[in-house]
């Protein structure tokens, strides 16, 4: 299962930057990596794709010294290298940009870059040196960041640049990026890819871990596909297609497009009028947001995470309070004060698949039959006498839901944390969709969900729409918004920046709206 490609043949003269030979790693009974061999040529951008839990992050963590492989070896630039911790990795010229940034929020950019690489007893000399290096790097790679800005004051896009700068400051020749575009606007992502190409032009080697096939196609030279701990394919990007990669990831043919017929839009179910939210720090999260939601449509809300979508969902769901404005459901006003109760929303016919299923949507140590009634547990069918729960019915009900939503393994006694991300999400969906709500709120329906389950989840959402229900969809995945929505609202900084129909717009326009630019407002 060698990863030799035609590329590697050409570069025979130069030793490959990374060579992994027969890497295996087990966590208890789970074989996270099974005899993986992979070669990355020097100066290449190499992509690694795979579903959640396929073993991508484990493999990279072994390379970066977080985990120790059970067997196998690593060669860096042709030299056998033992990497026991991140110090060894840095010494070998490897830098890593984690999915969740490892930055100190109340430190400046400069302090963060120096952190862990300070020299001498006082900070002064290190900071002065870093400032000089940062200036050079900025010119070389389009990596401009204000060195004296606090991390908490700069956008995620800039925070990510700081992570890259940290690695370059430590003279990384090999850069690993784990899901780098998850938090970026399309524009920021493009900028990131320009940076990566610049780095490549300077001879750096880049490993890009992602689940977005489009990025793989755009930016990588070679790509490896992982599935269930094994590396199933390594191929030159130019010779493959997204469909082929998806099939290699899932192990069967996958429908990347959503199959849906035109919407039959009915009367208005919900009206949101001039909704504003100011948070506890006095920051305005939502500014004067108004829209209508109609029967039989999927209204998609696009936007980069943190632009007010979460607050909007929370107010409608009865979890968060609005500062001003009004929400009408079937023409009747609903409580949006801090006394609002999510339980009463459900009685009004509003169901909610929350963005964060680990913290909100599921109680992780609860068994599935407890989770499939969660939020509806006081409904008559789940209630017994004297305050008891009707556990017999709850279990039966769970068994039915698990069957209808193909939740595997179909064991109602299994606790939520034992299921994969996709199956967890199906538990939440089964619970909310089967209540047959008038309005379904869905936040990030496929975050952390594998491709196979995404197809199923999208189909369920479309089916609910076709049965005449109104759906409000919030997602940071622009592809998902475009594929599912019948109408798209774009949010930026708490404001609805624009409304578009998916057939009359494109990613470029939506990307501009997401960045706060109105393409129609040109002078």
């Amino acid at each position: 299962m060698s990863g030799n490609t035609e590329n590697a043949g050409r570069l025979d003269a130069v030793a490959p930057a990374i060579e992994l030979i027969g890497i295996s790693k087990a966590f208890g009974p789970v074989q996270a990596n099974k005899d993986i061999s992979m070669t990355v040529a020097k100066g290449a951008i190499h992509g690694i794709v795979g579903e959640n839990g396929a073993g991508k992050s484990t493999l990279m963590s072994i390379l970066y010294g977080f985990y120790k492989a059970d067997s196998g070896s690593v060669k860096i630039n042709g030299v056998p290298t033992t990497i026991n911790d991140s110090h060894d990795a840095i010494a070998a010229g490897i830098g890593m940009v984690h999915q969740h940034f490892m930055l100190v929020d109340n430190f400046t950019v400069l302090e963060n870059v120096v952190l862990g690489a300070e020299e001498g007893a006082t900070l002064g000399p290190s900071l002065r040196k870093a400032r000089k290096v940062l200036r050079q790097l900025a010119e070389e790679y389009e990596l401009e960041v204000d060195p004296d800005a606090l991390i908490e004051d700069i956008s995620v896009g800039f925070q990510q640049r700081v992570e890259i700068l940290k690695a370059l400051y430590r003279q990384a020749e090999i850069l690993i990026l784990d899901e780098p575009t998850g938090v970026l606007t399309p524009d920021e992502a493009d900028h990131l890819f320009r940076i990566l190409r610049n780095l490549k032009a300077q001879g750096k080697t880049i490993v890009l871990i992602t689940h977005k096939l489009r990025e793989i196609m755009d930016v990588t030279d070679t790509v490896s596909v992982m599935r269930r701990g094994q590396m199933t394919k390594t191929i030159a990007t130019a010779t493959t297609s997204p469909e082929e990669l998806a099939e290699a990831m899932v192990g069967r043919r996958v429908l990347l497009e959503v199959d849906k017929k035109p919407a039959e839009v009915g009367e208005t179910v919900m009206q949101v009028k001039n909704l504003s939210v100011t948070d506890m720090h006095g920051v305005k999260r939502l500014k004067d947001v108004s829209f209508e939601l109609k029967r039989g449509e999927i209204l998609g809300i696009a936007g980069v995470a943190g632009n007010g979508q979460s607050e909007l969902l929370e107010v409608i769901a009865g979890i968060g309070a609005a500062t001003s404005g009004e929400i009408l459901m079937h023409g009747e006003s609903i409580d949006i004060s801090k006394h609002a109760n999510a339980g009463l929303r459900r009685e009004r016919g509003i169901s909610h698949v929350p963005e964060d299923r680990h913290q909100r949507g599921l109680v992780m140590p609860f068994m599935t039959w407890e989770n499939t009634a969660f939020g509806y547990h006081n409904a008559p069918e789940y209630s017994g006498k004297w305050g008891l729960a009707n556990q017999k019915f709850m279990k039966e009900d769970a068994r039915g839901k698990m069957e209808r939503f193909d939740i595997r393994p179909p064991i109602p006694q299994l606790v939520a944390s034992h299921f994969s991300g996709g199956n967890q999400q199906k538990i939440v969906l089964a619970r909310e969709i089967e209540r047959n709500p008038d309005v379904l709120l869905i936040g990030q329906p496929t975050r952390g969900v594998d491709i196979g389950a995404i197809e199923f989840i999208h189909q369920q959402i479309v089916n609910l729409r076709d049965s005449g229900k109104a759906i409000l969809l919030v997602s940071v995945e622009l592809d998902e918004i475009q594929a599912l929505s019948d109408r798209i609202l774009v949010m930026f900084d708490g404001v609805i920046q624009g409304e578009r129909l998916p057939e009359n717009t494109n990613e470029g326009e939506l990307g501009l709206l997401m960045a706060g630019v109105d393409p129609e407002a040109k002078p």
Partner: protein
Amino acid sequence: MNKNLPKWVDLGLIPLLTLALAFAASGLVVLSIGQNPVEVVQVMLKGALCNPTTDSSCFSGIGHTLYFTTNFIFTGLAVAVAFHARLFNIGGEGQAGVAGVGVALVMLSFDWPNWPIALVVGSLAAMVFGAGWAAIPAYLQAKRGSHIVITTIMFNLIAGALIGYLLVGPMQATGSLPESPTFPEAAALPTFHDMFGWIGLDFDKNAPANITFIMALIAAFLVWVLVWKTRLGYEMRAFGHSEKAAVYAGISPMKITMVAMLISGALSGLMAVNTVQGEAERLVLGAVEGAGFIGIAVALMGRSHPVGVVLAAFLFGILTQGGAELQFALGIPSQMITVIQALIIMFTGSLENLVRIPMEKIFIRAGKGVA
């Protein structure tokens, strides 16, 4: 529940092994003061479990152990219930103390016709006063976010001062001792001696164990029903695991915090029925004797499960009674028994991974793990 271990290992073998380790460590401490650990164990076990009616060398034994066990079941359940809603109720000591005041007030206010009525009213008073004392920290936590650990500790101190004041002031009997007048005789609760007598059996006449032990077992059963069978218990556990999830499900954090703490306080309070009404038959200083704090260890060791709590309470009952016997028979200071209790708490509470992690490795290797 651990996913890698069979249930009997998780809930049976590991606690037993940690306990064995704790005893081994205690043995070393005993050796270091020049005593024979084997003899110490013999004296403790005999002193805690013997029966004076059949054994003439036995002075107090099981009847005393079960009396202490009763206290620890109530306070252990109190901590366990709150803990399911992720509330750490350190205030059992104060809640039980104030409940004792409540019991004394009602006992001294009426001319009781018989003990069943006195028991019911006394228990209600204990629950109301115990819950009442827990209500203020609960409200401050729910409404103002004041940390319940801090406030319940402060309320323990306030309770101590309040009871001290009452017993040298308004509630003091004539005389110079800081204690209330003795309760009417008709309010006295049946002891084990009385209860065994009903069915024609004999039991130690001097044993303080009384009918509240039965109440404690019933309370344990009801707590099990509450936590795992009712919708309220479901909401408490959901809230305990994730407040955000609870809010999402329409569960009011305010309500759960209040209700869980009120139930917890009421359970702590019931302990006073055992000590104040059942044993002393008047309110004395220091009626709680640290049982509120031992309840924390009991709940911890019993994994907040009623069955575990009852077993752990019995163990601590043995330690308390056996420890007193040690002092009497071997002249070992009572501080020694505190050391042993501390070792048990340390091993079962915070050093459990010492046993758990090797066990997990063994079972994974043996391939017996159940996924």
